[in-house]
C-alpha cells in the first residue's frame, strides 16, 4: 500500500466517522483528498476498492439507500466501529499478557498480537506475563498443520469444506466434504470435528492426514453446529477413560525394563535372574507393541492373545 493510498484511506475513515448523515460518493470525492476529480470511472473503481479494503480490516461501512435519493449514502457508525470501553485489573491484565503469548509462532500469533495492540491502544495496560508464577510460566500452542488456517476460517465463517484425506493406515486418499463444527488440540495434534456429508454422520479428522488444500464450499453461515455438542469428548481416545480390565503376567530380566516396572501394579522376584510383573491392559496389540521393544528382556507369559501378539510382531520383524 503506497503512502498516498494510506493517507487517502485514513482520511476516508475520519470523514465517514465524523459525519452524522450518510454521504454520497460524490460528496466523499470532494471531501477526501486523493480521488480523481476528472475521470468518473476511475473514481468509481478506486472508491469501490477503498471500501472493500476498509471492510477487510474490519471497518463496518453502512450503506443507506434513501428512496428519494438516486445515489446511496455511506457512513461509519461510531458504536459499531469503536472498541467498547474495557478496563482490566492488574491480575486480569497479567493473564491476558500470558494468553497473547500462547500462539507465539503459530498461525494465530498475528491475530493475538493485533488484539493486544488494540487493547493497549484503548488504554488497557497489559503485562508481559510477568505476573504469573514470576514470569516462569510459558504456554505454547503449535499449529504446524498446513490445513489449520483454512479450517479455522471455515469454523469462523460456518462454511463447509472439501479436502483430500487419508484415513489412518488406509491405502487411498479420498475427497471428503465436511461441515466443520470445531477444531480440537489433543496431545500436540489437531483434529477437526464435523458432519461428513458423504457418510451423513459425525466424524473426526486428523489435520496431519489432510493431504492437500482445504477448499471452502457453499455460503458462509451454512453450517449449523448442533447444540450441546462436546468436541473434546468426540476426539478423546477411549483409553484415558475406560478401565483397564485385564491383567498380563510379564517376566522381565533383573535390572531391565524400567518403563514396564513403573506401570506394574505388582513386581515380584522370580527365579533365575528374572522378575515377574503384573500389568493392567485393555488392548493386547497396544500392550504387545510396547513389550516387544524390550526384546529378550521381557516375555509375556499370558494371557494367550497378548502373548501371541508379541510372537507375531517378533516373527514379522524377523521376516
Amino acid at each position, binding site marked *: 500500500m503506497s503512502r498516498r493510498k494510506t493517507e487517502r484511506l485514513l482520511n476516508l475513515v475520519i470523514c465517514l466517522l465524523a459525519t452524522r448523515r450518510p454521504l454520497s460518493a460524490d460528496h466523499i470525492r470532494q471531501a477526501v483528498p486523493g480521488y480523481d476529480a476528472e475521470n468518473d470511472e476511475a473514481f468509481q473503481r478506486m472508491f469501490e476498492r477503498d471500501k472493500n479494503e476498509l471492510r477487510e480490516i474490519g471497518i463496518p461501512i453502512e450503506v443507506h439507500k434513501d428512496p428519494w435519493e438516486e445515489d446511496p449514502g455511506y457512513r461509519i457508525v461510531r458504536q459499531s466501529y469503536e472498541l467498547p470501553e474495557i478496563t482490566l485489573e492488574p491480575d486480569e491484565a497479567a493473564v491476558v499478557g500470558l494468553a497473547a503469548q500462547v500462539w507465539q509462532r503459530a498461525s494465530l500469533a498475528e491475530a493475538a498480537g493485533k488484539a493486544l495492540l488494540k487493547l493497549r491502544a484503548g488504554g488497557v495496560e497489559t503485562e508481559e506475563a510477568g505476573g504469573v508464577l514470576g514470569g516462569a510460566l510459558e504456554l505454547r500452542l503449535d499449529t504446524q498443520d498446513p490445513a489449520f488456517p483454512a479450517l479455522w476460517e471455515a*469454523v469462523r465463517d460456518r462454511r463447509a469444506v472439501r479436502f483430500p484425506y487419508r484415513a489412518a493406515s488406509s491405502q487411498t486418499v479420498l475427497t471428503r466434504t465436511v461441515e466443520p463444527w470445531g477444531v480440537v488440540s489433543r496431545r500436540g495434534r489437531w483434529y477437526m470435528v464435523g458432519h461428513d456429508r458423504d457418510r451423513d454422520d459425525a466424524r473426526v479428522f486428523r489435520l496431519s492426514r489432510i493431504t492437500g488444500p482445504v477448499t471452502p464450499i457453499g455460503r458462509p453461515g451454512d453450517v449449523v453446529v448442533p447444540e450441546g455438542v462436546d468436541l473434546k469428548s468426540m476426539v478423546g481416545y477411549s483409553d484415558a477413560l475406560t478401565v483397564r480390565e485385564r491383567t498380563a503376567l510379564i517376566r522381565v530380566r533383573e535390572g531391565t525394563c524400567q518403563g514396564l516396572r513403573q506401570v506394574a501394579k505388582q513386581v515380584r522376584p522370580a527365579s533365575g535372574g528374572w522378575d515377574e510383573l503384573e500389568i493392567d491392559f485393555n488392548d493386547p496389540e497396544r500392550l504387545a507393541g510396547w513389550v516387544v521393544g524390550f526384546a529378550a528382556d521381557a516375555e509375556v507369559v499370558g494371557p494367550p492373545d497378548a502373548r501371541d501378539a508379541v510372537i507375531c510382531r517378533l516373527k514379522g520383524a524377523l521376516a
Partner: protein
Amino acid sequence: MSTADRLPRLLALVPYLMSHPGAQVPEVAKVFGLTEKQLIDDLQLVWMCGLPGHTPGDLIDVSWDGGEIIIDNADTIARPLRLAVDEASALLVALRMLAELPEFGDRDALSRVIAKLERAAGEAAAVVSSQVAVEVDAAPDALPTVNEALRRRRRLSLRYYVPGRDEVTPREVDPMRLVMVDGRSYLSGWCYRAEAVRLFRLDRMLTVDVLDVPADPPAGAEPGEVTPGVFRPSPSDELVELELTPAGRWVAEYYPCEEVTELGEGRLRVALRARDQGWLVRLALRLGDTGRVLSPASLAASVREAAASALKLYESV
C-alpha cells in the same frame, strides 16, 4: 511488517498516543514493533490527515519534540477499532485453555477477563472461540512440587525416566521455567548431571523433591528453545531408512522424518535420524511386519538378532 498493515496500525497508534500522552518515541516504537524511523514516518503521515476541509484546524496535530509524543485534534479516531473475530478468538481460545490448567492460580481473574473480552468482542467471537478447544493433560503428580520450587527458587531432586534408553536416572535440577506446550507440561532447568539446560516432562518424573538449596543456574544459562515432539536428532546421527505398510504409516506422523516418499498402495519410505540405536531397534520390533529397515544394514541385522533372541523365550515353553 508489510505496508498493507499500515492503516490498521495507524488506527491503533493514534488512540495509543491519545491514551498515553507524552509517551516516548523509543517506548512506542517497541510496543508497535517498529524502528524509531518507521514510527516517525507514521507520525508524519498522521499529521497530514484529518477532517474534511483539511485546514490546519481540521488536521491532526502531532509533535515529537525531544522524543516526547503529543497528539491532539484526533477525536474522531480516539478509540481503537473493535476486535475482529479472529483477534478476539485467538485470545479467548488461549484464555479458555488457561482456565483448564490444573493449578493455575488465578481462575477468578480468568473468568472475569473472559467475560469482559466476550462483551467487548461480541457474540461471534464468543461462539467461534468455544469451537476451538485445547485438551489439557491431567495434572502430573509432579506439578505442585515443581511449582513450589519455581516460586521459592529452590533446587529439585528427581528420578527421571528416559524411555528412549529405558533408564531411570537421578538428577539435580535448578528449575528455570515451566513450559506447557500443546497441553503437556515440561520443566526447563539446569541439569547438574548433563551440565546443561535440559527439558524434563513432568509426567516422567518418578519422584520429585524440593531441596533446601537455592536454585543457582550458571549465569547466562538460557531456558532454551522448546522443541516438543520427543527428541531432537542432530545431523551427525546416522540416517535410517524404513519402509512402512499402511498400518505402519503412523511413524511418519509421530516422528520427524527428513524424507517421506509414497511408494503406492499406501506404503511409505521414510528417512529419519535418531540419536539412539536402541530406540531404533525398539521401533522396528514394534512395527513387526508393518515396517522394515532398508538401511543401514547393521541396524537391520541388530533388529533380526533382537527378534531371534526374543523368540527363543517363547519357543522354550
